[in-house]
């Protein structure tokens, strides 16, 4: 049981990293990773919503969607959107300081493809509640890791002399390619697992 859970956790965190191996949540990955602070805050918010989604999806799958599997996509996106709305209102009420720090990124989590991907994959792989939560934590921490790494590289890039033609997005994508290549090294871990 424990070994299975830890396998789910590490394979999602490193081998199938949501951002660098599965290409999920790239909008925020490229959009907000200019500063370290926003990077890890967004990562933490994403992880939180991912875990909440895992629980909600498990409830939906167990009690409701068995009768109407064709409504899956619609049900998931509606639940995710309302979940993000509830989390936003709760944070605004109980943790106003954090709410101000997160700002626009909180509502934007709805359209982060990582969340819907988690919901769909959890369903197709048939994870139970605990496996789903571990999967969500692994995915969220993987996202956070990628965001932090990218943000720290880009903070350093601010003072570097970048050629004009690479200034817009080109260099950032090449850096992402190198990071993704580095993360592919973890794929070797899978051979024994």
């Amino acid at each position, binding site marked *: 049981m424990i070994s299975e859970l830890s396998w789910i956790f590490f394979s999602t965190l490193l081998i199938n990293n949501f951002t*660098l*191996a*599965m*290409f*999920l*949540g*790239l*909008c925020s990955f*490229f959009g907000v990773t200019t500063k370290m602070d926003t990077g890890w805050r967004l990562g933490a918010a994403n992880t939180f919503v991912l875990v909440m989604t895992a629980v909600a999806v498990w409830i939906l799958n167990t009690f409701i969607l068995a009768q109407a599997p*064709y*409504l*899956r*996509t*619609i049900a998931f*996106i*509606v639940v995710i*959107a309302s979940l993000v709305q509830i989390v936003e209102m709760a944070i605004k009420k109980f943790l106003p300081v954090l709410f101000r720090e997160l700002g626009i990124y909180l509502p934007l989590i*709805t*359209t*982060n*493809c990582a*969340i*819907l*991907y988690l919901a*769909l*994959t959890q369903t*197709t792989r048939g994870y139970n509640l605990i496996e789903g939560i571990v999967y969500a934590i692994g995915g969220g921490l993987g996202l956070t890791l990628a965001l932090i790494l990218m943000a720290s590289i880009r903070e350093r890039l601010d003072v570097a002399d970048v050629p*004009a*033609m*690479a*200034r*817009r*997005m*080109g*260099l*950032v*994508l*090449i850096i*992402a*390619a*190198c990071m*993704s*290549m580095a993360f*592919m090294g973890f794929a070797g871990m899978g051979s024994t697992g």
Partner: protein
Amino acid sequence: MTAIGVEIAVDAPEPIVPGAPSPQPLWLDFWRGIADDNPVMIQMLGLCPTMAISNQLSNGLGMGAATLFVLVCSSLLISSLRKVIPNEVRLATYILIIATFVTISDLVMQAYFPLLSRTLGAFVPLIVVNCIILGRAEAFAGKVGVRRAVADAFGQGFGFMVALLIMCIVREVIGSGTFLGFQLFGPHYEPWVFMIMPPGGFLTMGLMFLTMGWWGERKKAKLAEVAK
């Protein structure tokens, strides 16, 4: 340009909604999505599917067609319902409409193209959260008439497809030495497998942006020379 714009405006009188895009001839609404306002290369939206499934040309064609279908249908519906949808819940309504069409295209693909549906996997239902579609609904379709919304949707859809197909062709030809599954370079070609793996997606996209940056800089330099 203005003369044509005025003609069209007289032809189809539309009450101007606050924040609506300025009136333009229909073909310009269409063409803008492919060239000047390309969703992937200029607006940098929808990057996730563009990189994730572009390792084979057939994947790109399937994904491009599905996205085009969802984009056109949802723009059509949103634009025709724009006076009925209350402003406060418009985003939720848009997402519901988009999710409906995504479910349709997902089921159709599962029924008629099971192989394609299996290789694309979760990325077909993930069209729901493709920012291009919600972005067009919010910025365009919810504010203008049906004809313009559809022209714009076709333009953006084909623009997305063009970017996707460029990525697919580069990655498939280099990464597996094939074009739509046909061998190109004979049996002695050693494929550069890196290109069809995840880092290859980032690299191809990066090279595409570098090329465009180089092109833009060259244009700027030429303009500066002419100005002198």
